[in-house]
């Protein structure tokens, strides 16, 4: 088919106008695609028109070719524009589609470490920073390890402080984690810095604040040159880390046969910041540990030279601390395994 450049250029112009209006009037992606195929496709109107180019006289070719390319470019630009308009409109209207994203998503089971374990882990982590490692000992002890080695005579009122579960004449459920002190010293030479978390047993009937078994965490540091000042400073370090930087400590005289001097450690009440509340019975202070310098009698019992070595020891109740920290009103909740309780610590 012979044609001249002019009429081909006119046809291209006509294609341009129709194409633009077709693209502009498209309302969705499918209609845009239809227009693309019709005008810009491999066998679309522009391709058809351009295929006639080869039949034109040589002098007509450049101008007509340029016209074709211009029309094609213009339609392509229009098409892209229209497509992005349609996509933007679709995005804007997305919530009106059938998906309700307020529906709950698919979850896995909740889980959790026991609050007492959390407290134990945290205490261990803090003391690790000042050189402590973790030790354990048996829960069934000999009376020697539980009492005698710790300077507690068996037939003495001091042993009354521990209402003991006996299993045999000389075997008992440990009343504190302190026998781990003796075991560690029997097995190792200083320097010693250990923590011993574990279960202890006392003949206390169940009530809101007593359980016949409960966790304790023992600490022991023995080396040359440890003095009361170091002891105070180490406990202060722990307290500031565990209870917060503003927390103050107060050391009071107390009595533990295995420490001398002995001290009870109070911290400013973290519930009322020391202003007095029901938890601290209005005193502003909460008792958190028993402690003291290791009694030389204990060193003698385990064969340490009490002239060469000094040390400090302390004991805390992670269960009690967990109860204070999380405001758990009843110790029995710690041991019931109630899912509604445990999930609060997940």
């Amino acid at each position, binding site marked *: 088919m012979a044609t001249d450049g002019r009429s081909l250029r006119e046809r291209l112009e006509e294609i341009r106008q129709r194409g633009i209006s077709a693209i502009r009037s498209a309302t969705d992606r499918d209609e845009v695609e239809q227009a693309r195929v019709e005008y810009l496709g491999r066998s679309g109107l522009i391709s058809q028109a351009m295929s006639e180019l080869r039949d034109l006289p040589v002098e007509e070719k450049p101008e007509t070719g340029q016209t074709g390319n211009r029309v094609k470019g213009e339609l392509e630009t229009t098409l892209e524009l229209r497509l992005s308009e349609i996509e933007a409109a679709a995005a804007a209207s997305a919530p009106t589609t059938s998906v309700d994203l307020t529906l709950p998503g698919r979850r896995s*089971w909740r889980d959790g470490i026991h609050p007492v374990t959390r407290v134990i882990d945290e205490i261990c982590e803090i003391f690790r920073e000042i050189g402590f490692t973790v030790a354990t000992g048996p829960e069934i002890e000999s009376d020697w390890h539980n009492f005698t080695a710790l300077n507690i005579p068996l037939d003495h009122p001091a042993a009354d402080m521990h209402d003991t579960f006996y299993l045999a004449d000389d075997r008992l459920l440990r009343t504190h984690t302190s026998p781990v002190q003796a075991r*560690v010293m029997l097995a190792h030479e200083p320097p010693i810095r250990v923590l011993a978390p574990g279960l202890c047993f006392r003949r206390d009937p169940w009530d809101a604040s007593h359980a*016949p078994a409960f966790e304790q965490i023992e600490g022991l540091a023995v080396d040359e040159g440890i003095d*009361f000042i170091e002891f*105070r400073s180490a406990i202060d370090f722990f307290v500031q880390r565990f209870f917060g930087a503003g927390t103050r400590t107060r050391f009071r005289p107390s009595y533990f046969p295995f420490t001398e*001097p002995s001290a009870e450690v109070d911290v400013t009440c973290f519930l009322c910041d020391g202003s007095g509340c029901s938890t601290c019975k209005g005193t502003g202070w909460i008792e958190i540990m028993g402690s003291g310098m290791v*009694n030389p009698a204990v060193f003698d019992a385990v064969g340490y030279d009490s002239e060469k070595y000094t040390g400090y020891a302390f004991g805390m109740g992670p269960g009690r601390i967990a109860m204070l920290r999380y405001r758990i009103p009843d110790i029995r909740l710690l041991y*019931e395994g109630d899912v509604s309780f445990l999930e609060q610590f997940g």
Partner: protein
Amino acid sequence: MDVSVNWLRALAPGMQGSATELADRLSLQAIPVDRVVSVGDGLEGIVVARVVEAARHPDADRLTLCKVDAGRDELIDVVCGAPNVEQGALYPYVPPGESLPGGFVIESRKIRGEMSHGMLCSEKELGLGRDSGGILRLDGEFTVGQGFAEAMALPDARLELDLTPNRIDLACHLGVARELAPDDGPGAVPPPFDGPGWDASWADGVSEAEAGGVRIVIEDADRCNRYLGAIVRGITVGPSPEWLQARLRGAGARPINNVVDATNYVLLELNQPLHAFDLARLGGSEVRVRAAEAGEKLRTLDGVDHELTPVATVIADAETAIALAGVMGGEDSEVTLDTTDLLIECAAFDPRHTRHTARATGLATDASYRFERGIDETGQESAIRRCVELILAIAGGVADSNGLRVGSPPPANRVVALRISRIGRVLGLDLSVEEVTRLIAPIGFDTRPKAVDSDVLLVTVPGWRGDVTTEADLLEEVARRFGYDAFPRQPRSFRPSAVPDCADRGRADEVRSLLVSRGLYEARSVPFVPAGRSAESRIPLLKPLSAAEGFLRTDLIPVLLGRVEHNWSRGHRDIRLFEVGTVFGRRAGDQAELPADATPEQRDAANPFSEERRFAFVLTGARLPVHWGSESPDTDMWDLVGLVEELAEELGFGTVEPGLEPDESSERTFGFDSWLDEAVVHVGGNGGLTGVAGRVRATMIDAPRWSAPVFAGEFRLDPIQTEDQREYQSLPQYPAVSRDLAFTLATSVSVADVERTIRAAAPPLLTSVRLFDVYEGDKVEEGRRSLAWRLVFRAPDRTLTDPEVDGAVAGVVHRLEDDLDVRIRAS
């Protein structure tokens, strides 16, 4: 122990500070004070009044119409509801317009038609005690119209001390006053009484003495170091004067009569337990300290009858036991209103024997508490003199000039050496001899240097500080008097611990993090269980708190099942819990008798019990939390097996052996015979059985109808590998080729056997074998099932060719056909 602040002030004049400040000082320097209680605040308007007439209210049986003399011109009409109002007696009276403590204002008003102007009050209404059973009757010398607070030596404050076993010296007012007395004053000194003195000449004896017609015998010197006696004749028993009653009330003791009150007063002031016998009721006018005879009977003051054994120590007269030594007097020799002559006892009973006497009779008294902890044996003479002088002052009579003193002489005061250098080493304080002396001398410690410029300070310990026996004890005295809070805070450099972390702790951590990552909660429990099924290895507590907690657990699972039941009772159906804990058992074989001086190692070797660290879990309910978009079937056996496989792999503690028949020893070890169904998974390792898991037998648990099957597992902790044994494997360079293999075989052949056979038959090129389909049913012959496997081959150094892989698969198929009689369905 309750102490009265008024009493403390009387003992240590010049003592500064409010009751709260005194309590703080005690807490920070000596002993915890649990509570400070103000006594008798707000009593300003209340006066002492006498009920002159008491008549029944015409319209109400329980009401009394009283004419009250409150020291005014006219008698006052008061209607009283108390059952104990008595004509002629004295009571506290609140006139109209005045108020009770707490601010309640009393007004004149009509009660059942009769006018009542004011009110007679009970102890409780006055805030002085708990007794609300009647109005407070005032026995003693009072003036009508006198201010009640003044008459009762009020207001006062009560300090409730939390005594530690070492500081028995603080169980009396003088001891507490010593801690609080000004350092620069005379210290704490009991003020003299308004009456005759008593300077005894002593009739001494080692085991017996006689004076004033009374004989004292110590038959068993082990049981009593010393027995002092004083005789007072011609006394009049009656109520104590108000000042004495006020003292006793202030310390929480109830006044009884002047003689008993005098002994109680000395106990609460000086810490010396004393006892007064009615001399007329002592058979043979003698007392003997001896062991009780077997079957000997005694009724104590509290009206309880005891049948004694020789463990108990008694005071006896010539015929029979009349008191439990150091614990409680007997009813038959008790002082009564008719008593005129007294024998006053001030003895030093042995702590251990007193403890045994108290335990044998189930008694714990103020006296036994002190004797068990050791009294001040150097203070007995002053205590008995104080008691005699008090009785002479308030009950009249004449004291025999001879006192009796039997036993060994009082021990000399202990001298303990204190090195100044040791203060530096243990406390970190650089104190001089003078500074140390200034700290501890005010509380009774005398100091003198051993020699000029000596490092050693010789410290004489006062008799009331039996707890101070070593240099360490003196260091505590120095430290607490210095003030624990006055120590500088100086963090010191430290050497890290030579003790390695214990492995169990790391193992427990691994278990916790793994099980938590699988959506389980950690539980903790008390390891006590009821008798339940009999297990010979189970250890009973000798004195359990209850039958439900009478034994130590031998397994964790039953305790966790208890937790499951608890959760069911709260309506939870989906329960996923684990616990890391200890189980207990008995060691095989007989243990040797231990010598008294056994080494710690021998003691451990002789332990008849064993314990083991374990972990356990329970799973029941939906596999996944309920979701609207998907089904959530219940946890089943394959969830359990999968979890066990993951545990075994990730904790490196062995291989899973499904369907293994439990043997005798594993049943005993894990006790699962009773709680697991036949579907059991064993985990074995190098050291034998490491754990079991399975479905919990329905009969083991009290399951509600809506509950799901329960799955559980229990494992030893010690086979867990905490070392990181991972090693990098180079990444594959050449493509893998996979082939699927489906065949039928007898259902009796286990999947584990098939996998083993495949692995054995294939060349090392086989990198993985995975079962992806199991079918049993119509399309397969009866007694057979179809298994489909995907085998993946890969060579580390080249691309595998099809013929190579085909050959490998053919080898596998042959072996399966030969060994397991499989029939190939497709490949």
